[in-house]
């Protein structure tokens, strides 16, 4: 059987407005992304996830849409989009876009029409109450420190409308079949333009049970409806859900493989940071065990950082505090009373820990996702409010505006980081291209190595006994392949014994080519991992192809 493409994909998230400006207006654009496709292909990524590029007032980075069928003129045109998809395809890369249908902008024509006329069908696209019911205890807006309420009074309509996010993002009513028909039209439109799927924004808020809104919701049926529709247009289409919930709630969204194909694994995400902070494997291993089994077509998408805050909601309070202490020592680094609005590199700082984090990410069962810029250790701008600090322009060179744009610096969508250890003169693509030992070139090596190990994306995993509380040792198995991954969370060298007896392994093939292991016989190996060290091994039996050096290949005939 052919395995679904997304299980061996490497996804790369791009904020179009902040990636590369092709026309000098200070805003990144679709042609700018197209311009950089060779760079993206050189990373080894196979799927681009484009953050919203639709017409929008962009009060929430484009997650406030006024038109689902177009392109924000600052970011390009539909033709630019089609060209991008085609040129990406020529390089073996797919393009995934955002499906933002939990809410629209309050400037969306549906909302403008609906608020004016209660008898309009567009009125029923949204959730209105003349007197909103009292909020259930603990029920809060998604941005509690910025937006106190979930109901906002609209003077034109003379009613309150519901919004889980900002007040300029009125929530669509998914119980209305006409709204779901609109969503399917949106799917049709973009699938016809060649997208491989959608990152489905705010899924639980849109379809899940909400005690504040007394309407019967049918998450499973609706998700099936969307999925069935999408694959009827393109059998390979995927729905990647933003489902930021506790592990036990997640299986509801996969269904039996007939709902969302993939879920962003926020739960595992926060536990990776808990292990980095605690310097031991405990929190992460616990989370790995807590995650439900996925259906055959289901897949986790793992990430270190995305372009929102690092959400620590699913950690026990004491672990959350350890993470805060380690990675967000200043109060202004913390956000929404649940997370951290920082980039990966400034949080971890130490190159060894950054490599450890990426190696760990890629070794997690599932599909890896990288936020643009993390491959070069892009920094942050803590002077900006909300979640903006992580959304800094990509740093291409040490030149003007970091090579991001030729515009006057005052016209940039967001200032380039120019100062400090993460300033564009210290961190940029051009310099790292020329440096064989750079993070960028190491990252490429990681991706290549991962792409030779489909076990991570396709296989099943088990922890293996490592006798060390600081080293996570796990094994992944798929078809004719077995891989062992070791990750040392501690700042000290750790020695451990790896036992592959159960897997009929007789030899370990070191996949990064930097290990020192000692064969103890009887399928046990003694491995020394340096501080924050990591290692991947392919387990080979006696009759498997040998890892002989090239000089040993001798000719049969010449």
């Amino acid at each position, binding site marked *: 059987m052919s*395995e679904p493409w997304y299980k061996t994909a490497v996804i790369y998230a791009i904020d179009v407005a902040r990636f590369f400006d092709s026309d000098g207006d200070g805003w990144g654009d679709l042609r700018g992304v197209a311009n950089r496709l060779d760079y993206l292909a050189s990373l080894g990524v196979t799927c681009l996830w484009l953050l919203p590029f639709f017409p929008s007032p962009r009060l929430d980075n484009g997650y406030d849409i006024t038109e689902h069928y177009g392109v924000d003129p600052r970011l390009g045109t539909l033709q630019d989009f089609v060209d991008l998809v085609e040129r990406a395809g020529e390089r073996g890369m797919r393009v995934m876009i955002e499906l933002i249908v939990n809410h629209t902008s309050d400037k969306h024509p549906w909302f403008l029409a609906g608020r004016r006329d209660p008898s309009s069908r567009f009125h029923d696209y949204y959730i209105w109450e003349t007197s909103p019911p009292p909020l259930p205890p603990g029920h809060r807006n998604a941005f509690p420190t910025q937006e106190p309420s979930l109901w906002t009074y609209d003077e034109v309509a003379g009613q309150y409308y519901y919004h889980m996010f900002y007040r300029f993002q009125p929530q669509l009513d998914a119980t209305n079949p006409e709204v779901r028909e609109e969503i399917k039209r949106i799917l049709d439109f973009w699938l016809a333009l060649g997208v491989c799927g959608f990152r489905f924004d705010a899924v639980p808020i849109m379809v899940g049970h909400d005690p504040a809104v007394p309407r019967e919701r049918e998450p499973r049926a609706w998700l099936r409806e969307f999925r069935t529709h999408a694959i009827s247009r393109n059998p390979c289409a995927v729905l990647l859900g933003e489902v930021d919930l506790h592990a036990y709630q997640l299986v509801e969204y996969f269904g039996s493989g007939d709902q969302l194909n993939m879920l962003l694994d926020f739960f595992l995400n926060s536990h990776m940071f808990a292990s980095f902070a605690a310097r031991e494997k405990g929190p992460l291993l616990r989370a790995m065990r807590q995650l439900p089994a996925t259906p055959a077509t289901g897949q986790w998408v793992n990430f270190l950082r995305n372009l929102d805050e690092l959400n620590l909601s699913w950690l026990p309070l004491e672990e959350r505090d350890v993470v805060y202490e380690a990675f967000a020592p200043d109060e202004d680094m913390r956000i929404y009373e649940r997370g951290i609005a920082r980039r990966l590199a400034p949080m971890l700082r130490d190159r060894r820990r950054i490599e450890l984090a990426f190696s760990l990410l890629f070794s997690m069962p599932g599909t890896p996702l990288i936020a643009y810029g993390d491959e070069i250790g892009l920094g942050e701008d803590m002077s900006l409010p909300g979640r903006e600090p992580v959304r800094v322009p990509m740093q291409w060179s040490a030149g003007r505006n970091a090579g991001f744009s030729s515009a006057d610096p005052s016209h940039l969508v967001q200032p380039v980081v120019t100062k400090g250890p993460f300033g564009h003169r210290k961190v940029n693509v051009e310099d790292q291209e020329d440096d064989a030992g750079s993070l960028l070139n190491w990252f490429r090596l990681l991706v290549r190595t991962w792409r030779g190990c489909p076990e991570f994306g396709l296989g099943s995993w088990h922890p293996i006994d490592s006798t060390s509380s600081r080293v996570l040792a796990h094994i992944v198995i798929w078809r004719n392949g077995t891989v062992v991954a070791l990750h040392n969370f501690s700042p000290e060298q750790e020695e451990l014994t790896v036992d592959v007896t159960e897997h009929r392994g007789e030899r370990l093939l070191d996949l990064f080519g930097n290990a020192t292991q000692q064969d103890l016989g009887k399928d046990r190996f003694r491995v020394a991992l340096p501080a924050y060290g990591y290692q991947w091994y392919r387990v080979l039996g006696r009759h*498997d*192809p040998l890892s002989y050096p*090239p000089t040993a290949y001798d000719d049969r005939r010449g």
Partner: protein
Amino acid sequence: MRAVGRDHLWWQRGVIYQVYPRSFQDTNRDGVGDLPGITSRLDHLSSLGVDALWISPVHPSPMADFGYDISDYVDVDPVFGTLEDFDALVDEAHRRGLKVLMDYVPNHTSEEHPWFQRSRSSRDDPRRDWYIWHDPSPDGGPPNNWLASFGGSAWEWDERTAQYYYHAFLAQQPDLNWRNPQVQEAMLDVLRFWLDRGVDGFRVDVLWHVIKDDEFRDDPPNPDWVPAHGPHSSLDHVYSSDRPETHDMVLRMREVLDRYDERVLIGELYLPVNRLMTYYGEDCGGAHLPFNFELMRVPWAAAEVKHTVDGYEGLLPEGGWPNWVLGNHDKHRVASRVGPAQARVAAMLLLTLRGTPTLYYGDEIGMQDVPIPPNRVRDPFEKSVPGLGLGRDPERTPMQWDASENAGFTTGVPWLPLSADHAVRNVEVLDRDPRSILWLYRRLLALRRSEGALSVGSYTPLDRHGEVFAYMRRHGAERILVALNLSHDGQVYPLGPIGGRTLLSTHLDTDHEPVRTSLFLRENEGVIIRMQEVPPR
């Protein structure tokens, strides 16, 4: 003409393309392809990137076996055109750097050949001994138990002269008596005639049949025979074919060719590999390329294919140049044997193994066997042994050039039906799809041309892992690894402390992508990788 390396001849570096002339291109609306048609399609072969075309017989023939029953060896059948058309084809091909190979059918003529007409006219005719005549056995039946390939006894009773004549194939195809020096001279003159016209070599039809046992001993039964193999296989043909004296005849053919520069002698030989190898001759003075048909019979699994390739490589005599064939006009098409997805992997195998590859027309667009309704069967084999799937019409259907009514093959009525998918599977449509099998063939051929390791490099087998068959080709310091996933599942292949860059994937989507230490092959994927040592970090 293309420059060739000093150490290798053009037919060692080159790739051969078989044209079945009845089905390639019709220009006179009779529904049968012709020589001007082939000439008009030479640009397709140039753009594909092959080096030579071999044209199945075009000589005057009653067409009992579609040209393999020849009535005049030194002319062209009107259905295919004229001798001038042939000369024009050779000129146009040579102008493009393409070699032209002909079919040479020495074992038998048509019963309408003047030689046979004379031979059967009287027991005393000087040509009587040019064919194989024999008295009946004491019981009045055929002289021995030899069987014809297309069914029944190989002996045909001739009423007028009251003797049997021998025919290894149809009764309309009497076998020549190559033990007669006059026959040898006459047939070698045929070679000279075409060599003088500029032909670059020959594919010799049923070469192993040319000499038969001079004592006419019965062939013993074949212990492994089952009826599904057809009646001909019920005997082990150790006396009726593959006699030691055959090699003397090959030497004589070779002597003729060697008086010209770089002409090639290819033998059609359906024999076990160890027997096949004997046709290279002592010190490789025999056939340049005894056709190797092993890939057409091997079960399509990594272990079997590896066994076959390694076995063939291991048995090659010193100095013998290997060759590989994936399809021809007598065997089911490769896309039907292994399926369309694996046909791409098979193409990569064929064009990356060590040795001269021969492509069969239409395989480059993934043509499959076409089911032939009973009322349109043309092959005498199917007509004489029906229902066993032995008929060869399905793999001989017209080439599909474009989406027009008869796929651009003819504006008349095609002699065999076209494939049902010709509107979407044709050269014009696939040319526009950069991921099509046509482009895969073009890319593979271009790579074979540019990479010495692929065209003339050594072959080193690598260990099999799961359903992955892998090998290394090396030329000087260049090392190229080929890994083929022969299954419909993804597979892992460990590389060790080496890495490299993907030169080509059968999926045509991962050019120049670096790989290292371990390889993931998607379902039905083959990859060609330029190897390099993984530098220590």
